[in-house]
């Protein structure tokens, strides 16, 4: 199998094309422009495919909404401030049960923030993000290869569950170059979508809508959505464990932070510190059960994020008070080093007396 050495942003774009993405709508924002540019170069001239540089993030997500209504595999990408603008459209996609893939290569915030890599949008991504009662599947890649694999999985998940899927990367993953293999080629025939609207031919007319003046009807829609979300929580949780078997201290980190943490754990192991890691790959649904299972044996948890502490709330929910959590975070787009994280976690290790 061929290996490609291209930037993370380009990996997502190529993987999307190979997943049968027919439509891309985007708007320039750093640090994800290579993705939009790759699509302009490679998708725009492809037979039956559409690339539009939209007039705004809001328009881009609404073009995705339209393309999804017509039955296409469609995606958009942006970075933190642009993703805020897309929330309106994501709420409508969730409400109408339309598939879509939305990529957020996070940067520091709030406000215009910085263009450097951050994990500042965990809350926004995992709590729905826009208005109303809904969730989106959130995938958290931690390497070039995973950008490829999870992008392809994102399109399948979106179609299978008829729901928007967020790929939550960051500016560093987007800019990094790593050798990548693309495991899947575009499916020859994507299944036709029964909900697609193209005119009422040989069937009664149909409506895709979100508004209802009857609260009871809307409540039923909310219940239906949450039955689906419960199913996703049962079926789609994904995570990686790293050296957890004998670990006395478990690092919980995701995305690029997990990559940095892995370097720190290697250093810790070289110093005979028994440190392991749980890396959630799906941030929603979150691996609550796995953390509970680990907490039966392990008492100490170390949450590391490139923000002021967002996922830590999910870890607290998972532990239900069983276990002790310490936190280390660097917000603002600052990229911590493995040595720095090793220093902090080894201090924790000794303070808790885990070396004894």
């Amino acid at each position: 199998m061929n290996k490609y050495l291209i930037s993370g942003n380009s990996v997502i774009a190529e993987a999307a094309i190979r997943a049968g993405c027919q439509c891309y709508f985007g708007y320039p924002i750093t640090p994800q422009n290579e993705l939009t540019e790759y699509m302009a170069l490679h998708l725009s001239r492809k037979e039956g495919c559409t690339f539009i540089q939209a007039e705004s993030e809001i328009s881009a997500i609404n073009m995705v909404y339209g393309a999804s209504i017509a039955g296409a595999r469609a995606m958009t990408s942006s970075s933190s401030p642009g993703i805020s603008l897309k929330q309106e459209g994501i709420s409508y996609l969730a409400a109408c049960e339309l598939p879509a893939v939305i990529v957020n290569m996070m940067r520091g915030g709030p406000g215009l923030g910085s263009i450097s890599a951050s994990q500042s949008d965990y809350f926004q991504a995992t709590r729905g993000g826009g208005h109303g009662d809904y969730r989106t599947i959130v995938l958290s890649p931690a390497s070039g290869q995973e950008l490829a694999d999870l992008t392809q999985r994102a399109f399948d998940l979106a179609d299978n569950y008829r729901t928007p899927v967020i790929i939550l990367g960051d500016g560093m993953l987007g800019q990094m170059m790593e050798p990548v293999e693309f495991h899947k080629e575009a499916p020859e025939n994507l299944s036709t979508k029964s909900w697609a609207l193209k005119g009422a031919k040989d069937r009664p007319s149909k409506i895709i809508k979100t508004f209802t003046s009857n609260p009871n009807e809307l409540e039923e829609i909310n219940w239906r959505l949450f039955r689906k979300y419960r199913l996703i929580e049962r079926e789609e949780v994904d995570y990686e464990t790293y050296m957890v078997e004998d670990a006395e201290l478990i690092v919980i980190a995701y995305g690029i932070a997990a990559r940095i943490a892995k370097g720190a754990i290697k250093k810790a192991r070289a110093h005979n510190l028994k440190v392991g890691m749980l890396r959630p790959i799906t941030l929603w649904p979150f691996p609550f059960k796995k953390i509970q299972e680990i907490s039966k044996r392990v008492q100490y948890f170390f949450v590391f994020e490139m923000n002021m502490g967002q996922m830590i709330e999910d870890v607290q929910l998972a532990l239900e008070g069983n276990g002790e959590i310490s936190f280390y975070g660097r917000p603002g787009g600052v990229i911590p080093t493995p040595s720095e994280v090793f220093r902090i976690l080894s201090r924790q290790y000794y303070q808790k007396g885990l070396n004894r």
Partner: protein
Amino acid sequence: MTIKTVYKRPKLLKERLFHYCPGCGHSVIHKLLCEVIDEMNLKERIVCIPPPGCSVFAYNYLDIDMAESAHGRGAAVATGIKRVSPETIVFTYQGDGDLSAIGTAETIHAANREEKITAIFVNNAVYGMTGGQMAPTTMIGQKTTTSPYGREVNKEGYPLKMSEILSVVEGTVYIERTAVNSPKNIKKTKKAISKAFQVQIDNLGFSMVEILSPCPTNWKMSPIESWHWVDKEMVKEFPLGVIKDRIKVKKC
């Protein structure tokens, strides 16, 4: 004695009571759309994008495929559908708040990309569904719930003329402003709608029909008074007629 049918309910108009107020233009425009879509035989290939607003319930009346858009995003949603499915006839149904306030950017840029879509733009000079607030198209001096002393130019600006603005955008092919306040104007509106759809069928570019439509409830008038007000006041700011017609140029 033989009985000849001279008028009947349009085939595509569902048998359901309108929720619109007495004298409102939406019901007339809905009827015209049903007639045109039926006469042009488009039911099997047409999708309507209704907006939030009074006409959010358009799907209760028109027996065609519909996909509701977020406020103002109609042109972007229509773009997505049309690009995936170029053979589908896609039209937005938008009010003045929707198309000329919150959706200005979407509308202008879809037009500028020469999207092959049609906008049915219903201008009644107020936000209707939310209770009669000032719109970009509210007349100077007109009292609304958010311009209770009358619209003042130095604070609230001038009535925004979207048809004229769009006429200088290269991608627009056909724009006409009509009204539904008299049998004569209703006939003209019907003709304009079918012309706008034909522009899309012929794949020429962006087309729009702006329809001046009475809103007696929020104008605080009787239906009859509101029809006269369209003639006496609204047409001064929003003159009726073809604003742009590049059909012949685009065809050759």
